[in-house]
């Protein structure tokens, strides 16, 4: 585990971006998330780890209300974004999702051109006043997605024609094009090979400068490599939350230790 050089990573205190208080999620009868309290900091990469079915993806989808699309899902408790409750009746989930972008497990570019993929968000939110401005937004988003050099000559080609890793970076570019404040990533590297994974991880580290990034991952190495804070979920409860270095070297809860050392999973 040479790559886990997190112990000497500088950790400074930042302000809270998202605060979850007593969040419970039910899927019909099933109680998927139980009393989760967590504070996600700004300009920080927070990793959610835990065995399959522990509720980490479910909780992630609560943060931009993607669970609204599932009929049987009900969320209780408070999730505050900059102090405002995102489950307040007055909040339009569409406006929320413009602030809290999301990248999915499987790369899912629209079956349109690369340009249109990135330009779609800015277009529907009216971020660009002219074609030139839109071009600029698309270019800077693709640069931030670390894919500009590869696609700049074929912006009019379909996004679905790219390789898996390129598609995922395109999806990240698409997500950052709408200037979100928080970026949620649901196992963004699970469908990618190690090289593409490394590229995406590098990208995540760069994104930290501007956004608060929350990443769900199955790979503990990945969590250790990219995150500053780590939350360990088990059977729907948040078992432990703290600095990544501390979670991986000196976990307080025996379950965390058991998971990290491979005894539960």
């Amino acid at each position, binding site marked *: 585990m040479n790559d886990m050089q997190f112990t000497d990573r500088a950790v400074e205190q930042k302000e809270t971006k998202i605060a979850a208080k007593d969040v419970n999620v039910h899927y019909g009868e099933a109680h998927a998330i139980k009393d989760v309290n967590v504070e996600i900091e700004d300009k920080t990469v927070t990793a959610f780890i835990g065995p399959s079915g522990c509720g980490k993806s479910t909780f992630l989808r609560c943060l*931009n209300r*993607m669970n609204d*699309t599932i*009929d049987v899902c009900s969320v209780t408790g408070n999730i505050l974004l900059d102090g405002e409750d995102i489950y307040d009746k007055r909040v339009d989930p*569409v*406006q929320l*999702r*413009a602030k809290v*972008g*999301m*990248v*999915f497990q*499987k790369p*899912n*570019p*629209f*079956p349109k051109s690369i340009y249109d993929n990135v330009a*779609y*968000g800015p277009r*529907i*939110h009216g971020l660009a006043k002219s074609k030139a401005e839109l071009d600029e937004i698309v270019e800077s988003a693709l640069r931030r997605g670390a894919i500009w050099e590869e696609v700049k000559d074929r912006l009019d080609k*379909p996004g*679905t024609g790219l390789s898996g890793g390129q598609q995922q970076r395109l*999806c990240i570019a*698409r*997500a950052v*094009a*709408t200037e979100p404040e928080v970026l949620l990533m649901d196992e963004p590297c699970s469908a990618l090979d190690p090289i593409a994974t490394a590229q995406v991880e590098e990208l995540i580290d760069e994104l930290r400068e501007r956004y608060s990034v929350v990443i769900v991952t199955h790979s503990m190495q990945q969590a250790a490599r990219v995150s500053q804070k780590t939350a360990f979920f088990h059977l729907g409860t948040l078992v432990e939350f703290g600095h990544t270095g501390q979670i991986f070297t000196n976990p307080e809860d025996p379950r965390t230790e058991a998971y990290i050392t491979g005894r539960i999973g």
Partner: protein
Amino acid sequence: MSDTSKTSLLALTPRTKARNAAEKRFRAYGIAAIAVGLMMLIVLVTNIIGKGTGAFQQTFVTLNVELLESKLDKKGNRDLDDIKKVTTFGYNPLIRGAMEAKLAEIGIETDMKGKDLEGILSKGAVGQLREYVTTNPDKIGETVEFRFLAQSRVDGYLKGRVTRESIENDKAISVEQLELVDQLVDAGVIVKTFNADFILGADASDQRPEAAGIGVAMLGSLSMMLVVLALALPIGVAASIYLEEFAPKNRLTDIIEVNISNLAAVPSIVFGILGLAVFINYMHLPTSAPLVGGLVLTLMTLPTIIISTRASLKAVPPSIRDAALGVGASKMQSVFHHVLPLAAPGILTGTIIGLAQALGETAPLLLIGMVGFIASNPPETLVDGLLAPNSAMPAQIYEWAKRADPAFYERAWGGIIILLVFLVTMNTLAVILRRRFERRW
């Protein structure tokens, strides 16, 4: 332990043999089934083509008619009102004279009387002549060449349907007339050629099968398709999008869903009686109108369109919806910007197939009076086309098939060919669309 004797790979065990035999048998069943199906298709197609192609040809008699002023315009002042006073009956002598003149010109001698000579032509010949004179009164006094339809027995004789033996008890034609027809064919006066009027023309009365065409009924069918397309597509697509993307999943939507599937299986005659009760008896829309036919067929087509649209919406991967929602698109934006364009080829295919189904439907038209109506005048305007009584292609075919004269029978088969051409074209279009745009993600 004792029966672990080694078996050779080269010799088949009885179990393998039985398995292979079963597979061979199954393949044979499959091939036999396909062969039977293909054979029936071939029999059907050859039968239809064999019996129907005759309808596209018709026998014509070319005559030079002298438009005598003494008969048509006694006062000689070319007053249209006066000319119109001469009934078709008054035109008979002209045709008789033209026939006699033609015989004299090519040197055929016959002792037949004028009435029998006229009998070779269609009963519509005088009408055709009168129509020409009333629209071109200045031609009176001149000799004009006309191409008249031969009567259906003569046509049947040239096509081999009518023989000297078969007309023994037939009052419509005699053996002597057939002799004369033979001579006229040799002289090139009577010819059998392609007949565009069958495709473009109007239906004719029982007495004149030779003049009947499917064109007006075709317009009736097209008007109905227009109504179906204009109503069923938007209603069907809107209903499907709502049910598939927006509606909450509860007991009520479950009931609606089940009932839409049930509606697709309701016999079409039921829709016909519904149309009769609602559109004609209650709403007092005109009977036999393509508008009503279109409304009834819309009801019938809606379930088909809804089912296929919902299937193609379902086939769009949910990741596309997630992606759109993830960048902050609203539900409606995600549907209209991303889901619907991807589902469009499937929706279009379903719509075309639904339309093709509606095009071939006869039973509901029975009850709203479109079957049995003799579509003799083409509609002049679009409104006319929707509201004026008309027939439809399958209804016209049914109408011809039940008439007594065997000449109509041939036209029924011909009509089937035209209908099939339409259906095959539409289905091909659906297949092409599906191939072309399928699965772009």
